[in-house]
């Protein structure tokens, strides 16, 4: 095992994949210099500007260009620097990428990967800090992945490039300085297979991306108070490993979700809904959705810290659930 950050692992995976498959090319803003977060480091030097394509600031059209290229057999990796910018090109994502296979009755495949970054916590303000994977996941026809560590970020990228569907991978900026262990070969990671990171008998806690370490810290504290928290990382949002979540809830009888996405009509709501609909009889307490408030991401460090869910909020929510017998 090697300690790697997410950008290091992604860059290494891209080196491996591009060496193996000439149909793979990268396109996006400032990739030639290695990408603003280093996830394209050394790629232009090795594969040249024809395969590492720096674009003008034209997200709509360069995403559309990627889709057109994918329709005719290429495997583009399109980088949208911040997922907030998906708003610029959402038409291409929602209408063209997501619906092409369906509208063509399966005659057109779209082996397209969109890499983007997300997340608050670094003072980037409301237009460079969102975590809007729920928006993407709400569109039928897109696969959506949210890695919480370097091995998953690289492995999901490889799996995405092996498949014929459009995939959006949301990498959390808040994890970019964290080194986590990864097999240097960076093996592919399957979509739709959750990881149970910690066993527990009392509460099922699903946490996504940068919320995973927060969940694990809260679970540690709660263990000291005799409460067993089972922490599940869904790894991908679509497909979602419903079975793993429901099996855990059947065991614990309590459910919480920790999600930096939308407080309203987002992934947290979708998971609560899933559990209530499918595991109602197992529940001993009302499920909890732990999310930021339904407001834009604030800039001021004090406000941003209050905005982001932390371990204390998770603990309070779970303690309340435990009282609710």
């Amino acid at each position, binding site marked *: 095992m090697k300690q790697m950050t997410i950008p290091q692992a992604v860059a290494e995976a891209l080196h491996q994949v591009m060496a193996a498959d000439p149909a793979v090319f990268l396109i996006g803003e400032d990739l030639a210099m290695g990408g603003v977060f280093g996830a394209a480091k050394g790629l232009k030097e090795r594969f040249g500007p024809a395969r590492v394509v720096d674009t003008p600031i034209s997200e*709509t*059209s360069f995403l559309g260009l990627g889709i057109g290229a994918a*329709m005719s057999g290429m495997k583009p990796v399109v980088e949208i620097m911040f997922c907030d910018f998906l708003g610029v090109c959402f*038409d291409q994502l929602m209408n063209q990428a997501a619906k092409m296979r*369906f*509208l063509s*009755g399966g005659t057109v495949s779209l082996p397209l990967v969109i890499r983007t970054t997300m997340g608050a916590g670094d003072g980037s303000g409301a237009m460079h800090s969102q975590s809007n994977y729920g928006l993407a996941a709400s569109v039928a026809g897109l696969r959506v992945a949210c890695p919480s560590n370097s091995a998953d970020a690289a492995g999901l990228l490889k799996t995405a490039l092996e498949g014929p569907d459009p995939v959006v991978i949301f990498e959390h900026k808040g994890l970019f300085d964290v080194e986590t262990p990864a097999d240097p070969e960076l093996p592919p990671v399957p979509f739709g297979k959750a990881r149970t990171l910690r066993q527990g008998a009392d509460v099922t806690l699903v946490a996504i991306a940068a919320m995973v370490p927060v969940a694990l810290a809260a679970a540690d504290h709660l263990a000291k108070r005799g409460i067993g928290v089972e922490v599940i990382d869904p790894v991908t949002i679509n497909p979602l490993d419903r079975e793993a979540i429901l099996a855990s809830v059947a065991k614990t009888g309590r459910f919480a979700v920790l999600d930096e996405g939308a407080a309203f009509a987002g992934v947290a709501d979708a998971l609560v809904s899933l559990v209530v609909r499918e595991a109602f009889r197992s529940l001993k307490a009302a499920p909890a959705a732990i999310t930021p408030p339904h407001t834009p991401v604030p800039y001021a460090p004090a406000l941003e810290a209050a905005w982001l869910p932390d371990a204390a909020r998770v603990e309070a929510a779970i303690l309340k659930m435990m009282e609710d017998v």
Partner: protein
Amino acid sequence: MNASTSSNKSAGRGRRASKPAVYEASPEELLKFYRDMLLVRRFEEKAGQMYGMGLIGGFCHLYIGQEAVCVGVQSALKDGDAVITGYREHGHMMAAGCDPKGVMAELTGRSGGCSRGKGGSMHMFDPAKGFYGGHGIVGAQVSLGTGLAFAAKYKKTDNVAVAYFGDGAANQGQVYESFNMARLWNLPVIYLIENNQYAMGTSVARASSEIELYRRGESFKIPGKQVDGMNVLAVRAAMDEAVAHCRAGKGPMILEMKTYRYRGHSMSDPAKYRTKDEVQKMRAERDPIEQLRELLLDGGHTDEAALKEMDKEVKALVADAAAFATESPEPDAAELYTDVLA
């Protein structure tokens, strides 16, 4: 031209469209152009009828009047070239050699449709014929077409992509993002503007600060040319030039085809934004099929009887497609869940 919205916004700049050129077609080619245009028209007339009979639902945008464009364009392409367009695409599919049965059955929403009934009028594809859709969002196909050209260049072929769009789509922002990248990287893409004078009900003059749409590439250094889109030979000649430009690695080119649709924007559009006289005048004086018919007869390349026979044969082909589209079974309910993801 009379049918244009007669604004003089661009007049007096001392710039004019390039001198008209026409393709010198052999008699066989002339007859093929005629038959191909006739197929588009008869297909669309039948689609219009079937819409009226309630066999086709939703939107249905007919191409009648614009036949010279898709037929002239397609005739200049070769295997491996790619074509992509918007939602008024039945004609382009006929020109590309797609099966009329599959297209008509898609319109009727049957399992024999080319998208198995899941796409409908605006969303049809036939990549084996180089036809990449069939897209419902105005202008979005221009970015995709730029990507088809990117792929052609990336694979080191000399293929080109044709990205069709209308005068309405010419006001979408992503068209200009595409122009910029295509010229920056010299992608082999022909931006083919079908200027049929109306974006739904809005005339070009009411929507465009520059109505000479072939000039829209000037600030991107993309050459543009205005073409008589009612004359298939003019269309073909312009395409030959654009295709040669692209295959030579010189980058994109814009062709503005001045054309005209006889019907409303879609079947539900009574087209009250223009006069009946305007349409009638265009039909009487500029009809692409009639123009070619006269040329064929005047040149002694064929006679009335032979053209009548050809019309009969084309009508039979369309009738077969309509019968297939009526008899093909409805899609199975299980189709709801297929082709969402692989």
